[in-house]
Protein backbone atom coordinates (compact mmCIF):
# COMPACT_ATOMS: atom_id res chain seq x y z
CA UNK A 1 0.00 0.00 0.00
CA UNK A 2 3.05 2.30 -0.02
CA UNK A 3 2.16 3.38 -3.54
CA UNK A 4 -1.25 4.56 -2.35
CA UNK A 5 0.34 6.73 0.35
CA UNK A 6 2.77 8.16 -2.20
CA UNK A 7 -0.07 9.05 -4.57
CA UNK A 8 -2.00 10.61 -1.71
CA UNK A 9 0.97 12.72 -0.62
CA UNK A 10 1.74 13.86 -4.16
CA UNK A 11 -1.91 14.84 -4.76
CA UNK A 12 -1.97 16.80 -1.51
CA UNK A 13 1.19 18.65 -2.51
CA UNK A 14 -0.09 19.54 -5.99
CA UNK A 15 -3.47 20.65 -4.61
CA UNK A 16 -1.80 22.83 -1.99
CA UNK A 17 0.55 24.39 -4.54
CA UNK A 18 -2.45 25.16 -6.76
CA UNK A 19 -3.99 27.15 -3.91
CA UNK A 20 -7.06 24.99 -3.37
CA UNK A 21 -8.91 25.60 -0.11
CA UNK A 22 -8.92 22.98 2.64
CA UNK A 23 -12.13 21.28 1.53
CA UNK A 24 -11.00 21.00 -2.10
CA UNK A 25 -7.57 19.74 -1.04
CA UNK A 26 -9.25 17.06 1.04
CA UNK A 27 -11.53 16.11 -1.85
CA UNK A 28 -8.72 15.88 -4.40
CA UNK A 29 -6.48 13.93 -2.03
CA UNK A 30 -9.23 11.49 -1.13
CA UNK A 31 -10.28 11.00 -4.76
CA UNK A 32 -6.69 10.14 -5.68
CA UNK A 33 -6.40 7.80 -2.72
CA UNK A 34 -9.59 6.01 -3.77
CA UNK A 35 -8.41 5.77 -7.38
CA UNK A 36 -5.03 4.36 -6.32
CA UNK A 37 -6.65 1.86 -3.93
CA UNK A 38 -9.00 0.75 -6.72
CA UNK A 39 -6.07 0.30 -9.08
CA UNK A 40 -4.02 -1.76 -6.64
CA UNK A 41 -6.83 -3.72 -5.03
CA UNK A 42 -9.53 -4.20 -7.65
CA UNK A 43 -7.54 -3.53 -10.83
CA UNK A 44 -4.27 -5.32 -10.20
CA UNK A 45 -5.76 -7.55 -7.46
CA UNK A 46 -2.65 -7.08 -5.31
CA UNK A 47 -0.49 -8.79 -7.95
CA UNK A 48 3.05 -7.52 -7.21
CA UNK A 49 4.00 -8.13 -10.84
CA UNK A 50 1.48 -5.51 -11.96
CA UNK A 51 2.08 -1.80 -11.76
CA UNK A 52 -0.01 1.30 -11.44
CA UNK A 53 0.93 4.38 -13.45
CA UNK A 54 0.03 7.79 -12.09
CA UNK A 55 0.47 11.22 -13.65
CA UNK A 56 -0.18 14.68 -12.23
CA UNK A 57 -0.46 17.98 -14.08
CA UNK A 58 -1.48 21.52 -13.25
CA UNK A 59 -2.55 22.96 -16.62
CA UNK A 60 -3.29 26.35 -15.10
CA UNK A 61 -7.01 25.81 -15.66
CA UNK A 62 -7.26 22.48 -13.88
CA UNK A 63 -5.49 19.77 -11.97
CA UNK A 64 -5.45 16.67 -14.15
CA UNK A 65 -4.57 13.26 -12.72
CA UNK A 66 -4.44 9.88 -14.40
CA UNK A 67 -4.29 6.55 -12.58
CA UNK A 68 -3.87 3.40 -14.66
CA UNK A 69 -3.78 -0.24 -13.63
CA UNK A 70 -3.00 -3.45 -15.48
CA UNK A 71 -6.07 -5.39 -14.41
CA UNK A 72 -9.02 -6.96 -16.15
CA UNK A 73 -10.77 -3.68 -16.82
CA UNK A 74 -13.60 -1.82 -15.15
CA UNK A 75 -17.08 -1.16 -16.53
CA UNK A 76 -18.13 1.90 -14.53
CA UNK A 77 -21.71 1.81 -15.79
CA UNK A 78 -22.25 -1.63 -14.29
CA UNK A 79 -21.33 -0.59 -10.73
CA UNK A 80 -24.22 -0.73 -8.25
CA UNK A 81 -25.50 2.61 -6.93
CA UNK A 82 -24.16 2.85 -3.34
CA UNK A 83 -26.98 5.25 -2.43
CA UNK A 84 -29.74 2.80 -3.36
CA UNK A 85 -31.53 1.63 -0.20
CA UNK A 86 -30.65 -2.01 -0.89
CA UNK A 87 -26.94 -1.11 -1.13
CA UNK A 88 -26.60 1.24 1.86
CA UNK A 89 -25.49 -1.54 4.21
CA UNK A 90 -22.91 -2.98 1.82
CA UNK A 91 -19.35 -2.91 3.09
CA UNK A 92 -17.88 -1.98 -0.30
CA UNK A 93 -18.72 -0.12 -3.50
CA UNK A 94 -18.31 3.53 -2.50
CA UNK A 95 -14.90 4.35 -4.00
CA UNK A 96 -15.92 5.35 -7.52
CA UNK A 97 -18.94 7.20 -6.14
CA UNK A 98 -16.66 9.29 -3.88
CA UNK A 99 -14.28 9.99 -6.76
CA UNK A 100 -17.16 11.22 -8.93
CA UNK A 101 -18.52 13.31 -6.06
CA UNK A 102 -15.20 15.01 -5.31
CA UNK A 103 -13.86 15.73 -8.80
CA UNK A 104 -15.31 17.92 -11.56
CA UNK A 105 -14.68 15.39 -14.32
CA UNK A 106 -13.98 11.66 -14.24
CA UNK A 107 -13.21 9.71 -17.41
CA UNK A 108 -12.61 5.99 -17.84
CA UNK A 109 -10.53 4.49 -20.63
CA UNK A 110 -10.03 0.80 -21.29
CA UNK A 111 -6.38 -0.08 -21.87
CA UNK A 112 -6.64 -3.81 -22.73
CA UNK A 113 -5.49 -4.82 -20.23
CA UNK A 114 -6.30 -2.38 -17.52
CA UNK A 115 -8.23 0.79 -16.91
CA UNK A 116 -7.12 4.41 -16.88
CA UNK A 117 -9.00 6.95 -14.83
CA UNK A 118 -8.60 10.63 -15.60
CA UNK A 119 -9.62 12.89 -12.73
CA UNK A 120 -10.01 16.63 -13.26
CA UNK A 121 -10.43 19.42 -10.72
CA UNK A 122 -11.08 22.81 -12.27
CA UNK A 123 -9.17 25.73 -10.84
CA UNK A 124 -10.96 29.02 -10.27
CA UNK A 125 -9.67 31.58 -12.75
CA UNK A 126 -8.52 35.00 -11.53
CA UNK A 127 -11.54 37.11 -10.70
CA UNK A 128 -13.91 34.13 -10.75
CA UNK A 129 -14.10 33.79 -7.00
CA UNK A 130 -15.43 37.12 -5.84
Amino acid at each position, binding site marked *: *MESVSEVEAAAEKLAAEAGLDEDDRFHVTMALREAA*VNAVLHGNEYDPAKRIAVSFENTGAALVFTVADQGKGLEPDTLPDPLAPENLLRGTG*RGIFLIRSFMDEVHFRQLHPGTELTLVKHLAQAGEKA
Partner: protein
Amino acid sequence: MALTIASREVDGVTVLDLSGRITLGEGSVQLRDAVRDLISKGAKSILLNLGDVNYIDSSGLGELVSAFTTAKNQGGEIKLLNLTKKVHDLLQLTKLYTVFDIKDDEASAIASFK
Protein backbone atom coordinates in the same frame (compact mmCIF):
# COMPACT_ATOMS: atom_id res chain seq x y z
CA MET B 1 -1.33 8.54 11.70
CA ALA B 2 -2.68 5.06 12.28
CA LEU B 3 -5.75 4.38 14.36
CA THR B 4 -5.58 4.05 18.13
CA ILE B 5 -8.51 2.64 20.07
CA ALA B 6 -9.15 2.99 23.81
CA SER B 7 -12.04 1.20 25.45
CA ARG B 8 -13.99 2.22 28.54
CA GLU B 9 -17.30 1.30 30.19
CA VAL B 10 -19.92 3.88 31.09
CA ASP B 11 -23.23 2.70 32.61
CA GLY B 12 -23.19 -0.59 30.71
CA VAL B 13 -22.17 1.00 27.43
CA THR B 14 -18.79 0.25 25.90
CA VAL B 15 -17.28 3.44 24.58
CA LEU B 16 -14.47 3.11 22.04
CA ASP B 17 -12.47 6.32 21.76
CA LEU B 18 -10.95 6.27 18.28
CA SER B 19 -8.11 8.52 17.21
CA GLY B 20 -6.42 8.77 13.82
CA ARG B 21 -7.48 7.48 10.42
CA ILE B 22 -9.86 4.69 9.50
CA THR B 23 -8.55 3.70 6.09
CA LEU B 24 -7.55 0.61 4.17
CA GLY B 25 -4.42 -0.77 5.77
CA GLU B 26 -4.30 1.77 8.58
CA GLY B 27 -7.38 1.55 10.76
CA SER B 28 -10.03 -0.62 9.14
CA VAL B 29 -8.69 -3.90 10.49
CA GLN B 30 -8.14 -2.53 14.00
CA LEU B 31 -11.72 -1.28 14.11
CA ARG B 32 -13.07 -4.60 12.80
CA ASP B 33 -11.07 -6.60 15.34
CA ALA B 34 -12.03 -4.34 18.24
CA VAL B 35 -15.74 -4.50 17.47
CA ARG B 36 -15.73 -8.26 16.86
CA ASP B 37 -13.83 -8.80 20.10
CA LEU B 38 -16.38 -6.77 22.06
CA ILE B 39 -19.32 -8.55 20.49
CA SER B 40 -17.79 -11.98 21.09
CA LYS B 41 -17.50 -11.01 24.77
CA GLY B 42 -21.20 -10.20 24.87
CA ALA B 43 -21.16 -6.40 24.52
CA LYS B 44 -24.51 -5.18 23.20
CA SER B 45 -24.22 -1.40 23.49
CA ILE B 46 -21.25 0.12 21.72
CA LEU B 47 -20.58 3.81 21.23
CA LEU B 48 -17.87 4.76 18.76
CA ASN B 49 -16.40 8.14 19.69
CA LEU B 50 -15.06 9.54 16.41
CA GLY B 51 -14.12 12.95 17.82
CA ASP B 52 -10.44 12.47 16.97
CA VAL B 53 -10.97 10.74 13.64
CA ASN B 54 -10.41 13.23 10.86
CA TYR B 55 -10.10 10.89 7.90
CA ILE B 56 -12.16 7.91 6.77
CA ASP B 57 -11.89 6.47 3.27
CA SER B 58 -14.39 4.21 1.47
CA SER B 59 -12.85 1.18 3.16
CA GLY B 60 -13.30 2.80 6.57
CA LEU B 61 -16.90 3.70 5.76
CA GLY B 62 -17.45 0.07 4.78
CA GLU B 63 -15.94 -1.04 8.07
CA LEU B 64 -18.30 1.21 10.04
CA VAL B 65 -21.24 -0.30 8.15
CA SER B 66 -19.94 -3.84 8.75
CA ALA B 67 -19.53 -3.11 12.45
CA PHE B 68 -23.09 -1.78 12.54
CA THR B 69 -24.57 -4.87 10.85
CA THR B 70 -22.41 -7.30 12.85
CA ALA B 71 -23.63 -5.79 16.11
CA LYS B 72 -27.23 -5.71 14.93
CA ASN B 73 -27.12 -9.35 13.86
CA GLN B 74 -25.97 -10.27 17.37
CA GLY B 75 -28.78 -8.31 19.00
CA GLY B 76 -26.54 -5.35 19.79
CA GLU B 77 -26.34 -1.75 18.70
CA ILE B 78 -23.59 0.60 17.58
CA LYS B 79 -23.99 4.37 17.68
CA LEU B 80 -21.61 7.12 16.63
CA LEU B 81 -20.48 10.08 18.73
CA ASN B 82 -18.74 13.40 18.01
CA LEU B 83 -18.29 13.39 14.24
CA THR B 84 -15.72 15.80 12.82
CA LYS B 85 -16.96 17.97 9.97
CA LYS B 86 -15.18 15.87 7.34
CA VAL B 87 -16.61 12.61 8.65
CA HIS B 88 -20.04 14.17 9.04
CA ASP B 89 -19.93 15.39 5.43
CA LEU B 90 -18.85 11.94 4.21
CA LEU B 91 -21.67 10.20 6.04
CA GLN B 92 -24.13 12.68 4.61
CA LEU B 93 -22.80 12.30 1.06
CA THR B 94 -23.01 8.52 1.23
CA LYS B 95 -26.42 8.59 2.98
CA LEU B 96 -24.94 6.63 5.88
CA TYR B 97 -26.24 9.44 8.06
CA THR B 98 -29.63 7.76 7.63
CA VAL B 99 -28.27 4.39 8.81
CA PHE B 100 -26.49 5.35 12.02
CA ASP B 101 -27.82 6.88 15.20
CA ILE B 102 -25.42 9.82 15.52
CA LYS B 103 -24.95 11.76 18.75
CA ASP B 104 -22.96 14.83 19.69
CA ASP B 105 -23.22 14.58 23.47
CA GLU B 106 -21.82 11.60 25.32
CA ALA B 107 -24.19 11.66 28.29
CA SER B 108 -27.29 11.66 26.12
CA ALA B 109 -25.71 9.07 23.84
CA ILE B 110 -25.14 6.76 26.83
CA ALA B 111 -28.66 7.35 28.07
CA SER B 112 -30.13 6.61 24.63
CA PHE B 113 -29.07 2.95 24.85
CA LYS B 114 -31.45 2.30 27.75
